[in-house]
């Protein structure tokens, strides 16, 4: 074999790895995340919320009254009043109840821990010398967080659907606009709503991942992300700050209810998705810039 042949042989050997192999990292990442007790506990809490709401509504309405309208002024989450008529509304109620805090908190914990937790445990350096590649690892981490957003939302929705079907009648339902739609149509809308709710969490996911690249302490990153989440929610409630409110990632979250109008009112939904995309672009880039230039000393 001549020198040239050898070089050619080497090229062939180097070119051999299949591009599909790179997906193995995402799969490993996702499975590893799901095998943490913390993740399972978060999903357990999310699954419990619809159960609690369902049971509470059932108990409260046993005398034939309507939920959310008893005892004067106690205003529950959206769609609460409709649950007794149709169990499907428990899905919407549960998503409306978990979206402001439980869901983003769970996402914040997963995203905040993504890089910082590995740095804290020292496993980050071994992933990087494997070599996972910094951009590839960060993408796998974000993809995993996005998958978790979807999974967490579906856990709430499926749990709510099961509890709703168990405790309440199912059937045709009335939209916010007053029109009647079939149960099948209602289920499609429920799925759409779940997807929109999951997409609403993408901004928090990107923010959490960025915070995660800033520190070597998983706990600090999780606490910071959840703290930011709470702060933003408070800022969104202060009327004097209306000028900045359209830029807060949580501002259009409850717009998912517009999917229950007939016809669907897209304006705020579009604003919500656009805002999430903006957060993903800004904090995703920031996380990338930070992580690819970072000295890994942990």
């Amino acid at each position, binding site marked *: *074999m001549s*020198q040239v042949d*050898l*070089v050619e*042989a*080497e090229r062939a*050997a*180097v070119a051999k*790895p299949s591009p599909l*192999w*790179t997906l*193995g*990292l995402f*799969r*490993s990442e996702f499975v*590893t995340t799901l*095998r*943490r*007790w913390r993740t399972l506990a978060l999903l357990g809490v999310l699954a419990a919320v619809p159960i609690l709401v369902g049971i509470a509504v059932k108990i409260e309405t046993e005398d034939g009254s309507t939920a959310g309208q008893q005892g004067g002024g106690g205003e529950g989450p959206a769609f609460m009043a409709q649950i007794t008529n149709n169990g499907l509304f428990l899905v919407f109620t549960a998503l409306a109840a978990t979206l402001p805090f439980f869901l983003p908190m769970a996402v914040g914990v997963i995203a905040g821990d993504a890089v910082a937790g590995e740095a804290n*445990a*020292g*496993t980050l*350096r*071994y*992933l*990087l*010398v*494997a*070599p*996972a*590649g910094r951009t*590839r*690892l960060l993408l796998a981490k974000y993809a995993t967080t996005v998958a978790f957003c979807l999974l967490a939302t579906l856990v709430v929705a499926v749990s709510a659907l099961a509890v709703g079907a168990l405790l309440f009648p199912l059937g045709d339902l009335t939209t916010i606009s007053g029109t009647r739609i079939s149960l099948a149509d209602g289920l499609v809308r429920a799925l759409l709503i779940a997807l929109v709710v999951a997409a609403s969490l993408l901004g928090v996911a990107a923010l959490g991942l960025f915070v995660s690249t800033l520190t070597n302490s998983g706990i600090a990153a999780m606490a910071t992300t959840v703290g930011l989440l709470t702060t933003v929610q408070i800022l969104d409630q202060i009327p004097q700050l209306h000028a900045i409110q359209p830029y807060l990632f949580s501002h259009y979250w409850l717009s998912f209810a517009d999917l229950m109008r007939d016809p669907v009112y897209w304006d705020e939904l579009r604003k919500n998705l656009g805002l999430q995309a903006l957060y993903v672009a800004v904090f995703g880039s920031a996380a990338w810039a930070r992580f690819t*230039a970072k*000295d*890994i*000393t942990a």
Partner: protein
Amino acid sequence: MDDDAAEAAPEAAGADDTTDTVIHTRALTKRYRGGQLAVDGLDLAVPAGSVFGFLGPNGSGKTTTIRMLMGLIEPTSGTARVLGRPMPHASRAVLPHVGALIEGPALYGFLSGRDNLLRYDAADPTADPRTRRARVAEALERVGLTAAAGKKAKAYSLGMKQRLGLAAALLQPRRLLVLDEPTNGLDPQGMREIRVLVRELAADGTTVFLSSHLLDEIEQVCTHAAVMARGRLLTQGPVADLAARARGRLVVTTPDTADAARVLKEQGIGDVVVSEDRVTGEPGDRELADLNTALVTAGVRVRGFGVERASLEDAFVALTGEGFDVAG
């Protein structure tokens, strides 16, 4: 096989410094943000096929150097080449050929030993998923962890964790192994096993870069060594040369110690010390045979005569003028 031949060929052909060295740094410097100079103008050359001992007290810059070599830390200035490619720029091409154990093992406590290795292997985009389970099993076998492979890593002892870390470095055939304090936490039996493993790997042609603060460990397995202190490289070269640089001591064993000491002093031997039945001194440039003749003609009954080989520790003390355990 073809792959190995192709990569080895240009190295064998090249007489140039950079092609037959596996690690080559030039004026490699790292200053941390606090202003602390961790590594200062390091020129390191690790020959291919060597077992290279990287010595220095804790805090001398060994780990920072290793992290720069592995692309985890960006050098402040200077260059580092590993397997002939610049780091950290060529990380993704170089690191699949490098197995590393850096500052002790790091594991996912909630995963089994086997699952830890599967995860690290999945992180390598050049690792074939079809052979993954077989390679993991082989690596576990090699470090003697097969029986404990299904146990959660958090239940492992320090020694078992260390072995699992080593197994992660052995998931693929490597051209270079970087082992930072590989025998930490191991019992004497475990240490011996690691030494045997290192020798086996070296016999297969893998270059082993071994950092340690244990001098006898380096002396037992390494062909080459470098000594660092306070961020600077004090010396590097074949272990035999390093030890030879610290001159050995002349040792005479005799019942007539007083006479022997007098004769040796007359012969111009410096620093003569008598202890029990031994007389020792600095031989200087004197011909040893002449010294022996002088002793015997003076009627000194000699039981033993010779120069005690200097250990690497003597070399280290000679280099730094201080004990090894004094941190820089």
